[in-house]
């Protein structure tokens, strides 16, 4: 069920990006899309049988037990921080846009050549 929610979240963020005219709203829909994508990446590595555990070897769980797939978790660590990078850049540009056009609405900005 979480995987279906993640795919719908991804597509909904995509939809939100194309219909919103407000700059901050577009960055928020981009974040919604990336959260959906991250949940989807983790969901393909999930193993639902009860005694599967997180991929950490310590004194309690030895190598013999069934593990969840560790590779998607490594990928999502990178994808989250890339999302932060893009969002921070988007917000900096949004502040610049506000300084030049004094509004966040894309259609209110006069088309200054």
């Amino acid at each position, binding site marked *: 069920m979480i995987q279906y929610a993640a795919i719908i979240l991804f597509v909904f963020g995509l939809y939100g*990006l194309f219909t919103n005219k407000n700059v901050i709203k*577009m960055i928020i829909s981009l974040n919604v899309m990336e959260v959906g994508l991250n949940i989807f990446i983790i969901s393909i590595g999930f193993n639902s049988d009860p005694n599967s555990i997180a991929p950490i070897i310590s004194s309690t769980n030895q190598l013999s037990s069934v593990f969840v797939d560790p590779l998607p978790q490594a990928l999502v660590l990178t994808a989250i921080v890339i999302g932060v990078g893009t969002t921070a850049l*988007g917000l900096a*540009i949004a502040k610049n*846009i506000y300084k030049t056009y004094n509004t966040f609405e*894309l259609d209110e900005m006069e088309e200054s050549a």
Partner: protein
Amino acid sequence: MSAILLIAVPLLAAFLSIMMKKLSSYVLLAVGIFNVVLLLILPDGFVRIGEFNQPLGINLLLDTYSRIALLLLNSLILVITYLNLKSYKTYGTILLLALAGLNGLVLTNDLFNFFVFLEISGIAAYLITTSNKKPRSTFHYLMLGAVGSSLFLFGVIILYAMYGTLNMVGMIRLIQANGNYKEVILPFTLMFIGLGVEAKLLPFNSWVKGVLGNSNTLSGPMIASVYAGSMSFVLGRLITNLFDFQGSLLTVVTIILAVGILAGDLMAFASTKTREILLFSSVAQASIIALLFVNGIIIWAVYLIIANALSKTVMFLVINKATKDIGSDESQDLRGLFIKNILVGVTFTLATLSVMGLPLLVGFKIKLAFLTGLADANHIWLIAIILIASVIEGIYFVRLLVKLWYKGDKEINVSYNFSFKTVFVIIALALLVFGTYSTPLSYLDNSIDTVMEEVNNG
């Protein structure tokens, strides 16, 4: 002395250069020269990273295909940086990271690593376009780029879920073994759309008009020739090896690209701003290149990318320098630009004629070859579309040249310094020499892309 230095040295220089801001442009020149020299002596083959072989760790693949791409990239960035040394001093670190990102993009053989380098070069491109002082078009480019790479990652993750590996060679082997093409249609469309945004293919390139429409002597050549060239090389490698479109997906992609060619040229025909004419013509060229890769004509697509990147560098530099001095890029205001600088006019005309594909220039040889290639694969209506497009292209380019050569009402004084002129002359000579004496073009053939060899003897 492995290929990893092409990425590690620019990264190290970038990390160090934030501490000494003033030297970053000169460090970039040194790193560029180092990369070009390194490229000439590096052996071919796989380069492992962190002692793990293919499926476990990440590998870089250096073969003739990526070597040509890297040579074009590094030398073009070197030239563009040298020309913009004084006016854009603070962009040294950003250009170093763009260099590292693009080198990694061309070299990597791992799909997730491809996504990471796509992001690095993308963010570097957004920062380069901030030099246009138009935050709205940069924002538009950022949004579309972020959406594009997220779609690409979505496709890669679906492929990983199906085949369990992120490594391109292993993935191709498993897809061939699995054989059921219907399953991979969804991930391939997502990845193709994701890359289409960066490679300026038609339905996804609404950002191009804003970014290149008001570009300057740094962002114009960087985005129009360096980024477009590297994206076409990378898209080509993925199309020929990973995607190799079949059945319904093939027809859909071919239709998208064919429409892209015609629409790009029509929009260029309709616009009066010189920079818009150039950017729409490069949109059309990008679709032609993608179309050639889809039909398996690899070597002529590679030559088309090189010829296009070189001539677009000349054209964008000439027009952007003139726009900076005059203030507007309407073709009316640029009338009689070449009367006072004949040499620049001649090189600009040669570059334009090569893009149009007129005889005596390398563009003609390439166009002739890939049209015969298409004829062998009897895509008659594709040839018709490309010919119609080149007729339209001929009209609007000649119209532009006539305006630029013949004296208008206003007096225009645009000066190009000596280094600009030398670069223009070198590129124009290369276009001429390879146009007339074109036997060296036949030394290479479709075997320069060795990914398929690796897959078969793996």
